[in-house]
């Protein structure tokens, strides 16, 4: 595992493999870290351990509708958002209008999923840095969201809930009540989390000034999501390029401000996620209010859809950033080509740039703060 490299006259460098079994690499990521003493001189992420040929599989399954369960598995922490992106792309390609009610349910589901995903991100981030307590309590909250999902979709992690032109099935009768109840009880929990973690001086010491990502570099690397917003760039597709019905809601886009350290450090990326949960709560509340109570959730879209030849690129904002689906269709029943632009993949490519010069122990914080899901990186 450890190898000492003598490079010319310079100081000996050590190469260490972090992962693929390392608990703080959030899955199966292998980092080849070159160290000079304790300072990281270079990091090379090795990916592909979780490659499941999503794109090729999408092209070979029977029809467009059968791709949806596979999109779930790309980013298994935010499956609803992945489905949302895919069905939006397909609906644009097919020129389908979906019913109001479906749009509202989709948005509520996507926002609940965003909260669940951020909870996981924040919890494991704290865990990586040694804060075990918040981790347990965010999981309790996440469980409540999964319960809501389960009641409506029948699964707890990989929902297969949205389909082209609608939803697989209508929401549970208690959906509205459950979600309202959840949002009500969840708000104080955010404060609790803030109390436990945000201004904890140990936590700040481990995250402030660490892994600084200047806004310009973030833009150069095409980062998106909380990683980009943590650097102070106000860019969120829900506002900047509204899809679905996001233009109807009133919410803010939290950005990092360098409150306890440098702008764009790990703490900023963390706080953006925490504040975003609050914004998601706002969206859910407004959506629940405006959601029509009755209505068909399935359009009369056949199971096997055929499209006219064409191509589409649709992008949506997932908890990790900008997810794009590029679909080319010929006249057959299955896609000619599907390409997914995965935000985690792009954000991971930042790692060498922002971790150079940091301490080995801070590398854990940096990896945690960019919140990758390896299923999405490798696809």
């Amino acid at each position, binding site marked *: 595992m450890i190898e000492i490299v003598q490079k010319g006259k310079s100081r000996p460098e050590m190469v260490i493999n972090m992962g693929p079994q390392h608990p703080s690499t959030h899955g199966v990521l292998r980092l080849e870290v070159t160290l000079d003493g304790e300072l990281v001189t270079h990091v090379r992420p090795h990916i592909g351990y979780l490659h499941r040929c999503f794109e090729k599989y999408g092209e070979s399954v029977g029809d467009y509708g059968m791709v949806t369960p596979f999109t779930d598995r790309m980013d298994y922490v935010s499956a609803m958002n992945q489905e949302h992106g895919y069905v939006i792309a397909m609906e644009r390609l097919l020129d389908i209008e979906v019913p109001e009610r479906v749009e509202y349910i989709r948005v509520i589901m996507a926002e609940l999923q965003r909260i669940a995903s951020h909870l996981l991100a924040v919890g494991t981030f704290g865990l990586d840095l040694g804060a075990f307590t918040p981790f347990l309590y965010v999981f309790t909250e996440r469980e409540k969201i999964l319960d809501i999902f389960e009641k409506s*979709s029948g699964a707890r992690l990989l929902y297969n809930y949205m389909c082209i032109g609608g939803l697989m099935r209508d929401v549970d009768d208690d959906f509205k009540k459950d979600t309202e109840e959840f949002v009500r009880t969840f708000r104080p929990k955010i404060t609790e989390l803030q109390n436990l973690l945000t*201004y904890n001086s140990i936590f700040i010491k481990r995250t402030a000034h660490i892994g600084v990502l200047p806004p310009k570099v973030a833009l150069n690397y095409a980062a998106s999501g909380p990683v980009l917003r943590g650097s102070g760039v106000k860019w969120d597709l829900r506002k900047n390029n509204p899809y679905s019905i996001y233009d109807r809601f009133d919410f803010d886009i939290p950005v990092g401000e360098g*409150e306890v350290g440098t702008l764009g450090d790990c703490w900023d990326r963390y706080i953006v996620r925490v504040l975003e949960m609050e914004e998601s709560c706002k969206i859910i509340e407004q959506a629940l209010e405006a959601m029509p109570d009755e209505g068909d959730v399935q359009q009369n879209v056949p199971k096997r859809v055929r499209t006219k030849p064409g191509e589409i690129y649709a992008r949506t904002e997932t908890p990790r950033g900008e997810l794009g689906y590029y679909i080319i269709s010929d006249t057959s029943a299955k896609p000619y080509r599907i390409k997914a632009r995965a935000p985690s993949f792009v954000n991971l490519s930042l790692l060498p740039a922002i971790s150079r*010069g940091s301490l080995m122990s801070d590398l854990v914080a940096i990896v945690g703060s960019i919140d990758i899901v390896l299923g999405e990186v490798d696809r």
Partner: protein
Amino acid sequence: MADLTQNLDKPVRNALTENHENERKLTILEKIYLPEIFKGLWYTLKQMFKPKVTMMYPEEKWDPPAIFRGRPVLVEDNGKERCVACGLCARACPPLAISMQAEETEDEKERYPAFFEINMLRCIYCGFCEEVCPEEAIVMSKDYDLVYHSRAEAIYGKDKLLVDKEDLKERLDFLKEYKNRQFGQFWKFRQDNNIHSVRDRDEEWDTGLSLVDLLESKKETD
């Protein structure tokens, strides 16, 4: 970009130590670690007196609701599978987990699967097979803890897949309800529909009896 690519050999410290202009200063209390630690401990202590949310899993089994999509099973109706080996489920299965071989039978339904296999290593529990099945012969059960010791063991044949319809009652009722909502109130799964034969179609089939009961009653009337 430029400043990133130079100095590749020399380590640069990006863990800045000077204060940033916007930096919020920590208060004295925040600077001493102890209050924070006690805050965490106090929070944990408080939680000890709240209701427990953890389930002691292997001892205490979780009973999923009817909507839950566990492993797909074949419905056994009076000792026989309902399946007519039409192959729709195999066609709808995204990871190609299902395989079967149809064979003719003397039964009223005329066809049955000689073997029916689901490769549980491939199955992704999507529920498409249940959705397309015209016979309501394959449904998602509540089983979620599957164990196998080898790959060969993970390929479930009819012996493991067949589950009596009484044990699946909850799910079947759920499906009925769900399809009723979807297609209007007229939808009803008719067990006699399971008879695909065009032989003997001159009779009144909507008796609400299952296939075997129907044949029994027929025998009685004869």
